[in-house]
């Protein structure tokens, strides 16, 4: 049972990586989900990147216009 270091690595490394992969598949990636949520929410709330498209402050809110009433 005299395994050389490279040989041991050959067994240990894939085993380690495999277990890591399994972990990722089972557990929910909370940090990644949070990041994804933040990106989407920023866009929906128009917090970032949408500044240029925003009307200047002080203008009447767009939403006061009532949708056309159906007859």
């Amino acid at each position, binding site marked *: 049972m005299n395994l050389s270091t*490279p040989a041991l690595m050959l067994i240990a490394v894939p085993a380690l990586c495999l277990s890591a992969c399994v972990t990722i598949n089972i557990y929910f990636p909370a940090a*990644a*989900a949070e990041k994804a949520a933040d990106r989407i929410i920023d866009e929906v709330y128009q917090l970032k990147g949408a500044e240029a498209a925003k009307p200047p402050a002080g203008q009447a809110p767009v939403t006061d216009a009532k*949708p056309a009433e159906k007859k």
Partner: protein
Amino acid sequence: MKRFIVAMLLTLAAGLAQAQANLEINTPAINALKKAMGERHNQLAPFYASGAVGISRDGGVVLRDANAVPLPQRAAANSAVAAENADRTSLYKEIARANGKPEWEGEIRNTFAQRWIEKAQPGWYVQNAQGQWVRK
């Protein structure tokens, strides 16, 4: 041999890091939902500000005080809230699906629920863990 092992390690490490770093959110379905919600936000924002609509703890929005909405706008407020909640449910489902993990939908919803509240503006009403409405 050593070089091979190092190369293999690096490749795998890079793959793992990437798998952990991001969720796929760039699909046509998700982008369409995002766009619809962004447009609807203009309609909902005054209701958030007046407290008529609050950010619920379950990842949606609730018409919590219909009296705060002028009568002629009430139907529109109601349908905007309903449409928003439908889109949000689809969004959570789509993100889970886009990442090949439909079973993640609930956890994605929970994550979003916290972030919607976190990013709500001062003055908006948000629901705390006990279900009570608090003004941010």
